[in-house]
């Protein structure tokens, strides 16, 4: 990329990778959780709901710290992962993806929930009378009808992941080339005297990125809508 400094390119590519990976892994989990929250009754539902929302309401630094406690190399789960499999999240871009996924998760679930709630249960009922099991109904009716919401949730999560800062820096620190994502680079510049111009460049870069994701999602959503046929003029 000719217009970007090598540092910018590095941060950009890293951010993209982190955001993408986080969304890809969070998506199925988010779907499951949204489904549980909307369509299933079970004890402890509100606890699950609360836990899902935790990253939204806690300051990001606190979330990062909790992640560190859980997934750090001396953490409860992290220690076990490291000892058994040699997997380590701390100080790696994978950890950054985990942090981004956790922070974006509530937004994703929210969006999916709204769209799931808008799916007409009458259509699901119809599918079941046609012999479809719950699973097939979900895959062939519910999921496609939720598609706009999943898309919206995914993009929102992607955007949020791109902008994730507090939890990331706390959990995986700022390691150039490994975990220095766009927002971390940008933050660094705002704390540097005379960093304004470079910071502005990065801000514009981040905005463009978000822009591209949004336009892509709008385009996809329009295509989905077009294939369903438009309703009457409003």
């Amino acid at each position, binding site marked *: 990329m000719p217009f970007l400094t090598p540092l910018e390119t590095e941060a950009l590519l890293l951010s993209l990778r982190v955001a993408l990976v986080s969304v890809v892994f969070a998506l199925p989990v988010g779907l499951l959780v949204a489904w549980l929250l909307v369509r299933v009754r079970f004890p402890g539902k509100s606890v699950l709901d609360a836990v899902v929302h935790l990253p939204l309401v806690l300051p990001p630094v606190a979330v990062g*710290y909790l992640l*560190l*406690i859980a997934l*750090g*190399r*001396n*953490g409860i789960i992290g220690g076990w992962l490291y000892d058994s499999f040699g997997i380590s999240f*701390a*100080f790696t871009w994978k950890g950054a993806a985990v942090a981004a996924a956790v922070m974006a998760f509530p937004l994703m679930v929210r969006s999916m929930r709204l769209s799931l709630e808008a799916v007409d249960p009458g259509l699901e009922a119809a599918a079941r009378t046609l012999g479809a099991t719950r699973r097939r109904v979900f895959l062939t009716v519910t999921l496609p009808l939720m598609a706009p919401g999943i898309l919206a949730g995914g993009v929102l999560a992607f955007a949020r992941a791109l902008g994730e800062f507090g939890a990331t*820096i*706390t959990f*995986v*620190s*700022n*390691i150039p080339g490994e*975990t220095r994502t766009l927002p971390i680079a940008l*933050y*660094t*510049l*705002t*704390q*540097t*005297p*005379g960093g304004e111009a470079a910071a502005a460049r990065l801000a514009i870069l981040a905005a463009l990125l978000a822009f591209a994701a949004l336009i892509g999602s709008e385009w996809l959503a329009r295509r989905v809508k077009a294939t369903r046929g438009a309703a009457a003029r409003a």
Partner: protein
Amino acid sequence: HERVLIFAAASTAPAIEPLTRGFAKAEGGKADAQAVFAASGTLARQIANGAPADLFLSADKRWIETLAKSGHIDRTRMAALMRNCLVLVLPNDDRRRLTLSATLPKELGDGRLLLADPALAPLGAYSKAALQSLHLWEPLQGRLAFQPNARAVLALAARGEALAIVYRSGANKSPGLRIAAPVPETAPILYFLAPVAGRDRPAAQRLLAYLKSDAARTAYRRAGFIAVDAPCPS
């Protein structure tokens, strides 16, 4: 009743917080002081943008320079209040005998050395300068991880995630850490207090004086700082 606002680098909180109470008591209701803690860069930008600060306290020479040059602080009445030192810390249970020698990169193994971000925090800048003078900066590339401020470095180090270079003032107060070795500085780490230009009310001047008083010096010492002209313990 007057209220004096002092914008202070976050790492000075343990020393300044009790002194604001002491000042209010000394003033006997005529005036009191309130401390605003944040990253030096954040505070400096706020002052440059018209924040109602009376005094600025920071160890970050870059921002002090910048504010002085733009006329936002009065350099002529600037004073060094206290001094800090750098130390290499290890978790209590880490029994290795590490020093800042040429073998450090090898002894780290797949562990990391945690620093404050040189671009963000004066601690980082001083740490970097020290490593450079020890010719360790280059060899340690790839083994370094940055946190945005001194407290964050301490928190992470206390979790046993890595070794770290921190302020002695903080290391003293962290029960989970032991000091492995002092870090020789290239220049003394000094905290400068400067009045914000155009806001030299009498009460602000009294606070300035109070912070230079003997009572204040005791407080600094109690918080782990040393006197401006004292040497770092080795």
